[in-house]
């Protein structure tokens, strides 16, 4: 009943927060566009045969000399900007979401266990988290990328780029999950229902995942939203630095890096349209994150 009311209340608040509705719509639109990119995009940016250099550097339709076929213009290779962005967002979201999933599984697993068992296990996990916290996320991700370059043979590196990038982002984000899961598990441990479950002799894994986990989902959901934004930003930053993805499979960050070359020339759309798109995506996710935080933390309201 309480859970239902809470859900109901959240929905009620959502309907009364125009900003969150707009944010949700923008995010949904971008995510849908990314999912259906192969079907709605004009050209396939990965397939060199599907676009031609003769269409290069066309401006968006509202400027002179545009081709109405390419609504937001084309880049120097003749790639349609909309298609490039849709595919770029697709890649950014795939990497962001997989990194987030891995981070959540590792973080929540360790955090739950640390909160449940306490003692020495807890101390070890938290010390590792401390060291991880001393190294900021970008640094960790860069480091993992550098290690991968050192360990993997050059031939495989190209194929594993996406995997390495995902892992690098995941390993720099797990701490947030671990700390939140641990802190909330500690609170739940003192509740009667957990004590009862333990008394009844239920297996620790069952107590952790069936009893405690559903009750700490709220705060974890907030972390997830905020960290999805971080993951996308991190991927964009790494790709921008030229450490992430190669130019032939561009994510949003790579598109912006390519666009940088046109900063001094008149082709503003190659840089600013992907940039605007990235900002819109992250801003709307962050607004939703803020909204969720307010719901799960009524004290701030």
């Amino acid at each position, binding site marked *: 009943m309480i859970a239902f009311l809470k859900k109901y209340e959240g929905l009620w608040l959502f309907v009364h927060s125009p900003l969150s509705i707009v944010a949700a719509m923008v995010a949904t639109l971008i995510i849908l566009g990314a999912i259906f990119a192969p079907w709605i995009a004009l050209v396939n940016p990965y397939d060199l045969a599907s676009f031609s250099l003769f269409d290069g550097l066309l401006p968006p339709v509202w400027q002179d000399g545009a081709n109405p076929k390419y609504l937001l213009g084309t880049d120097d290779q003749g790639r349609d900007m909309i298609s490039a962005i849709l595919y770029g967002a697709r890649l950014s979201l795939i990497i962001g979401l997989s990194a987030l999933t891995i981070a959540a599984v590792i973080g929540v697993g360790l955090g739950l266990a640390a909160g449940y068992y306490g003692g020495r296990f807890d101390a070890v996990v938290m010390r590792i988290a*401390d*060291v991880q*916290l*001393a*190294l*900021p*996320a*970008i*640094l960790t991700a*860069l*480091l993992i*990328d*550098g*290690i991968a*370059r*050192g*360990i993997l043979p050059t031939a495989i590196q190209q194929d594993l780029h996406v995997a390495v990038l995902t892992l690098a982002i995941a390993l720099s984000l797990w701490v947030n999950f671990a700390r939140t899961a641990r802190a909330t598990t500690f609170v739940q441990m003192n509740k009667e229902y957990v004590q009862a479950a333990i008394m009844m002799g239920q297996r620790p894994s069952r107590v952790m995942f069936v009893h405690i986990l559903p009750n700490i989902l709220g705060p974890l959901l907030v972390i997830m939203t905020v960290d999805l*934004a971080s993951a996308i*930003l991190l991927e*964009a*930053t790494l790709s*921008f*630095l*030229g*450490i992430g993805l190669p130019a032939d499979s561009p994510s949003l960050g790579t598109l*912006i890096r390519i666009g*940088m070359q046109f*900063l*001094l020339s008149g082709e503003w759309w190659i*840089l600013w349209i992907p*940039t605007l798109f*990235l*900002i819109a995506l*992250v*801003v709307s*996710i*962050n*607004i939703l994150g*803020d909204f969720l935080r307010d719901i799960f933390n009524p004290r*701030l309201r």
Partner: protein
Amino acid sequence: MVYFILKRMIQSVFVMLAVAFLAFSLFRFVGDPITQMTGVETSVADQERLREELGLNDPFVSQFIRFTGDMLQGDFGYSYRTRQPVADMITERVPATLELGVVALIISLLFGVPAGVYTALKPRGIWTQTILMTTLVGVSIPTFVIGIMLIFLFGVQLGWLPTFGRGGTVQIGNWESSLFTISGWRALLLPAITLGVYQLTLTMRLVRAEMMEVMRSDYIRFAMARGVPIRVLHYKHALVNTMVPVITIIGLQFGGVIAFSIVTESVFQWPGMGLLFLESIRFVDIPVMGVYLVVIAFFFVLVNLVVDLLYVAIDPRLRLRDVE
């Protein structure tokens, strides 16, 4: 109190050891140091001799102890790429990064703290809503995009400020400073703002949350009931009590400033440690990567240690706790 300081110091030493261990493992296990140091023509026998000479066949633990000992004496080894001592390469770059970071931090505090206090005291005002919305957009714009925007606006369109390099520098001992020339300050401005903006939003949000928390506390309500003038209440009673968290922020943000300086330095071609680190990753220059890691961790640990000691100086309650 002595116990507290001692405990914190021992903790710091442990974190440093852990990071040194990480750097050492990097050096030892990512690629073979011998193949990195020798050319293709070196014979296997020569390679083995070098391996023995450098002590790479010794037990792991004694290698690590020697590695740490060398580091403590300032011997950081040689870069694979440039063959220069890593210590020289890093110390040459430290001033640029530290000056950039400190100025960015000052910008973030100068604007972040007042904005945080204002938005906390007038939570329903139109300005508060505007500021909050702006900061939400602010945290969502990646640092490198802010840098590009500033370059585009002030460098390309208006042509007011340089967009790369450090401008004129002055040599003071080993410290190459750009804080004493006008062209140095002009070059510093855009990177420092870029780096400061993200930190500014964090500062503001944390100060705001803290201030709102304090304003709700009993002693503020009581002071209000006593009829303490509102100005005194806000700036004497409340603000002073948000000082401790503000100092924590400085400690926490230092790590962020250093990390994001990698990005900022890349955008503005600022010749600091971050740029060096990026190059070392691109070329898999493991010794430079490892040392950068240790140096950053050292700064981080040092700043946080100072922050913890400052707590004790600022907050009398922490001093009392020891007496009990």
